[in-house]
């Protein structure tokens, strides 16, 4: 399916001052977001953070209390879902059980009053791209989870919407199928070059699929940015902890002194200097030192500075790499997770020296804000 040439604004999404409250439930507090045409934006965040509600607001399945939504340059805030130029793939596929795959996929076009011949053409084309050609006459009951998901996607493709909406589409699939479908969706985006908004709680999907990621928490945007930007330059402890698996270690440290862009902190009796930080941190302030497991090294590395000794509690062997769960010695006794090569000799019960690459360190103040100089 070759990408269709479109007017410049087609596929753009502009949200301004959007707010929505369900009595005591999830609340979207005055949210602003701009999505350019062709982007693959992923809404990610813990459950209950409002990411599905935001998607449903864009879809029109929820009505905003205030603020506006513009799609392809048109204000659709009060518009019926079908007239917003969007299509949605549901978490539970939501296929019509009494219709065949072909009827499911063609239903929306039938509602628009399109001719039978053209519907059949577009359905056949979509089925081709999703390897559903021989399943067209079957009922959903006779399909596997993966096939059903592809029919749900086919149903969206056929409508050639300006924007695709995905509501955690892979959460019901088993791990292997999920990986395969992730690749298919990425390839779909590449081929259609349509704007896609994708909701997931799985940050691996977020990192692999998203051109940009919107991290949501408590109905507000924590940070918006490219995957690697969020990985390397989290604006606060929440984003730092959410992006990257396994989670970033956050160690309680005390600030010693700060010069221009370098802050020296004390952890388990040792002093570590961290560059690229803003100044203005009072002495003795308690901060959080953020280090990703993959940036911790057992023993001493060339560029690493010693951090602390640690008592190993458990080693998780993942084949290509291993996760070492240890507890820092010295006063703090905080939990530490290190990522080590698969063939590491470290065994549970041993005491290891832990070193860290200072350039890969993050510092967060008491309220969780990153101290990195932007």
């Amino acid at each position, binding site marked *: 399916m070759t990408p269709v040439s479109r007017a410049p604004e087609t596929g753009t999404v502009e949200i301004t001052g959007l707010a929505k409250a*369900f009595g005591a439930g999830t609340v979207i507090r005055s949210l602003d977001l701009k999505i350019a045409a062709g982007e693959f934006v992923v809404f990610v965040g813990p459950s209950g953070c409002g990411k599905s509600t935001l998607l*449903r607001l864009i879809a*029109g*399945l*929820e*009505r905003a209390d205030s603020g506006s939504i513009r799609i392809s340059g048109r204000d659709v805030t009060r518009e*019926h*879902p079908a007239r917003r130029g969007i299509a949605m793939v549901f978490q539970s596929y939501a296929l019509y059980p009494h219709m065949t795959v072909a009827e499911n996929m063609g239903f929306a076009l039938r509602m628009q009053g399109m001719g039978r011949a053209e519907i059949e053409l577009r359905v056949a084309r979509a089925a081709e791209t999703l390897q559903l050609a021989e399943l067209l006459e079957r009922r959903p*009951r006779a399909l596997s989870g993966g096939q059903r998901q592809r029919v749900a996607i086919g149903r969206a493709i056929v409508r050639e919407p300006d924007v695709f909406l995905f509501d955690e589409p892979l959460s019901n699939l088993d791990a292997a199928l999920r990986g395969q479908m992730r690749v298919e969706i990425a390839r779909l985006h590449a081929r259609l070059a349509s704007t896609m908004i994708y909701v997931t709680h799985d940050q691996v999907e977020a990192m692999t699929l998203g051109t940009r990621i919107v991290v949501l928490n408590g109905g507000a945007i924590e940070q918006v940015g490219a995957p690697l930007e969020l990985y390397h330059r989290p604006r606060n402890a929440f984003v730092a902890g959410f992006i990257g698996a396994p989670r970033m270690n956050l160690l309680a440290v005390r600030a010693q002194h700060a010069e221009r862009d370098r802050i020296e902190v004390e952890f388990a009796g040792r002093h570590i200097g961290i560059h690229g930080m803003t100044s203005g941190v009072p002495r003795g302030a308690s901060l959080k030192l953020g280090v990703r497991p993959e940036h911790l090294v057992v023993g001493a590395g060339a560029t690493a500075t010693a951090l602390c000794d640690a008592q190993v509690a458990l080693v998780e062997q993942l084949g290509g790499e291993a996760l070492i769960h240890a507890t820092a010695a010295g006063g703090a006794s905080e939990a530490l997770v290190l990522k080590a090569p698969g063939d590491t000799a470290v065994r549970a019960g041993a005491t290891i020296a832990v070193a860290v690459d200072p350039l890969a360190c993050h510092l967060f103040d008491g309220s969780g804000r990153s101290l990195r100089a932007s």
Partner: protein
Amino acid sequence: MIYANARSGWLYLAPFLVGLAVFTAFPFVASLLLSFSDYRLQDSLEDARYIGLAHYVAMAGDRTFHKSLGVTFLYVFVTVPLKLATALGIAMLLNFRLRGIGFFRTAFYLPSILGGSVAIAVVWRYAFAGDGLVNQAIGWFGAGPVNWLGEPGYAMASVMLLRLWQFGSAMVIFLAGLKGIPQDLCEAARLDGAGHWQLLRRITLPLLTPVIFFNFVMQVIQAFQEFNGPYIITAGGPLKSTYLLPLMIYEEAFKYFDVGYASALSWLLFLIVGIFSALAFRSSKYWVFYSAERETPR
């Protein structure tokens, strides 16, 4: 999903509102007023004399009414649970693709088709007469003949058995409910190693609660309004042991022509069944699971 715009909501409810105003309101109000007046069927409606709560006071002293109320409660508390259990049990059995399942499903449903038809009278009397079918059957098991229709206790049993015999309607509703449960839910549970019993307890029953609740409330209401069984088979006898309240109400109105008293009895029955239904609805919050109740405007 729930649509927010009430306007088209009123449109969908319109038939009911018209029906309420045009066809239901007057008879309901009229019968309520009649329950406070002395009106005999042979007089014209204008001669109805207002007598306040006299009928309701008279009930306190009416021995036949006490007997009838007691017998009605016994009838309801025995037949409703038994009928629901049988209907659900057989519905579960019939929910599989077995060869000849269509025949069995029809066989179990046929009796409830008879409803109040006159054929039941002949069939049931023949079945429960002194030398009838049932006594023959229990004879094979060596038990002596039972005086089903002559002994007060057994007469009630035969009337109850008629209601149980007609569990087909409740069964059909359960079948329809079972069809509502998505097959893959059961498949998923079975994959998790759910045995027949866990499947029933964890998946089927919870998802069936809306239908179970409906059947329960409707069976209670219908049991309280049971008329055909006692009217046709035992005429309320012997010794008023099967004189269910609806039968007494019918006789007060059309045999003794005392429409006022019949109306009062009916509104008391209305109150009793109303309380039962209210309790059932109130309790439903704790055990009935509705999967469609998500709030979505449009």
